[in-house]
């Protein structure tokens, strides 16, 4: 679910700064200037608002049976009702809280881990850097969702049911950090050779400050992009885990709605309203987040912007720049070659 194209080229942070500073716009101007970011932020903000305002939007308790059986959509219940007669719209609206909260927690924790692993493994040459890099790469090749399922099934079997959300957030955090860490590591490898780092080192700044106060701010765009990418993954994986019955099956959430739809055979009897709204919400939210990422990517890599004529010729001077030449895709190989 991390189909961001942010990895295709290393983001040059200065180009992002240029594009904002050059046009002299603020954040809102930035959002308007890139339609993809605008659309993405709009979609995500919509879901966040819906989740916050849930009690205002619906008179029904999501877990209370208000009618007998599963009714198709009607003016009283615009998304119909579930097999237990619960209002589907309330379930969706309150379910947004669960999904967003778990995914946000997991993505935030994961991003912290990514920054820690990515920057330290990139900054330190030698045994420490190599070891951290090995750990990152091992986590990267291990299949994520199966590992998540193994962890969640073992953890949820032992955890008290009311703490399932925390368990799922932790499991997602643990299995989602490696991809972003590798992206940040590659960027750190290139940044630490720049003059401003050497200058800061010469003035006697300590290593922690060098990494987190000098290098990190220059990777802000990349950190934002990997955060959004991890968020997308976390939403998808969280819904998938709940769909498998590994979440709290008595609480309304998007994955739970789909779990019950599948278990009650809603498809076979043609009750489409039991699975269409939840699935569309997941798809819309993830698409919104992905658009934000593509927008960030376009700001940082102007060649991807659509409004330019088909073939942009780069000036010779720009091309001979060694940093440009080495901005090959972030492959295992290119990272090895850096060393």
């Amino acid at each position, binding site marked *: 679910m991390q189909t961001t194209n942010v990895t*295709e080229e290393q983001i040059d942070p200065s180009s992002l700064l240029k594009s904002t500073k050059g046009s002299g716009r603020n954040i809102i101007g930035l959002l308007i200037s890139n339609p993809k970011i605008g659309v993405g932020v709009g979609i995500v903000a919509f879901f966040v608002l819906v989740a916050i305002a849930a009690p205002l939007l619906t008179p029904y308790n999501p877990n209370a049976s208000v009618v007998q059986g599963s009714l198709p959509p009607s003016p009283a219940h615009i998304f119909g009702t579930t097999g237990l007669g619960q209002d589907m719209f309330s379930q969706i609206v309150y379910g947004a809280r669960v999904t967003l909260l778990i995914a946000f927690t997991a993505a935030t924790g994961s991003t912290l881990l990514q920054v820690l692993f990515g920057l330290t493994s990139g900054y330190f040459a030698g045994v420490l850097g190599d070891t951290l890099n090995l750990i990152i790469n091992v986590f990267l090749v291990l299949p994520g969702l*199966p590992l998540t399922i193994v962890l969640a099934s073992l953890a949820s079997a032992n955890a008290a049911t009311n703490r399932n959300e925390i368990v799922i957030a932790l499991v997602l955090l643990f299995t989602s950090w490696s991809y972003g860490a590798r992206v940040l590591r590659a960027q750190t490898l290139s940044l630490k050779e720049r003059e401003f780092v050497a200058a800061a080192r010469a003035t006697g700044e300590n290593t922690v400050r060098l990494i987190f106060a000098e290098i990190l701010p220059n990777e802000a765009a990349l950190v934002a992009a990997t955060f959004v990418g991890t968020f997308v993954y976390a939403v998808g994986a969280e819904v998938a885990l709940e769909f498998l019955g590994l979440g709290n099956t008595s609480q309304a959430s998007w994955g739970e709605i789909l779990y019950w739809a599948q278990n009650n055979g809603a498809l*076979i009897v043609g009750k489409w309203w039991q699975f269409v709204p939840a699935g569309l919400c997941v798809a819309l939210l993830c698409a919104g987040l992905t658009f934000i990422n593509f927008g960030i990517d376009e700001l940082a890599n102007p060649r991807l912007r659509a409004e330019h004529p088909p073939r942009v010729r780069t000036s010779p001077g720009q091309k001979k720049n060694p940093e440009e030449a080495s901005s090959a895709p972030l492959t295992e*190989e290119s990272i090895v070659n850096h060393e």
Partner: protein
Amino acid sequence: MRHLLRRVGFYLVALWAAITFNFIIPRLMPGDPAEAYIARLQGQRVTRQELDAIRKLFGVNPNVPLWQQYLDYLNGLLHGNLGIATSQFPTTVIDVLKQSLPWTIGLVGAALIISFLVGTLIGMVIAWKRGSWYDTLVPPFFTFLSAVPYFWMALALVYVFGVGLNWFPTNGGYDVFNVNPGWNGDFILSVVQHAILPVITLVIGSLAGWVLTMRNTMITTLSEDYVVMAEAKGLSTRRIMMNYAARNAILPSITSFSISLGLVVSGALLTEIVFNYPGIGYALYQAVQGDDYALVEGCFLVIALAVLIANFLSELVYTLLDPRVRREGS
């Protein structure tokens, strides 16, 4: 050669990590498989001797030191002994895996090949026609498709093509009632029919990655001097597109293969569950439902092994395609 050895070493470490995770994770949790099995008996009285017997059967013994358990575990792995699938007692885990693996490999393999070919081709064409209306419409459309969860796409396909239109079967790997497994035409036809919807699900879900990767690198190569030169020489569009631009743009697609493979495998797990497809994903689902930890771990191990092997193969292909890697490595 040195490069290759390094990579082999790396994959061995990764494999060791997967195996060790598999060993440690369940042991970090309270309880053991024997207790889980007894819990499944729901209230039936179990005597001390019976508990010990069940423990022995499952190969868990709290009195044995951890390192001894670890060695026994590794030894068991080497002999293909992964324990007993408690949810399908008395079948062994390895037998369940042996039955399931070919189905998943077939599903994932077919989906990967189709989506790679179709996605790369689409990406190539829309990069060539950059700025046209379909370059502005196609990428967002595929982005949306890729954001749809795999299992939900599967549910939608079952609903429309299976239940609604009744074009394709939606349940199982083949028609259990009317054909006999084996190398006969009826069986193969039945398998293909049953695979169509799951494969379409996986292809739709993974297509966007290939399209966007190819589009973005292709746009970069299109601005290279040798493409301009080729155009100036008056070569045919087709030749410039295929032999000059696409040929040089395809490498990142090969490297993103490893990430995409992980996604497709994850997607296949969920897709199999929706279609009751008799692969590893369905076995994993049943194991999770039945608190069958030995089988859960076995499934993870076999998936990890398959993904590691596939990744290694894709790196070999990359080494063959990109002479720079070979030269710097040797």
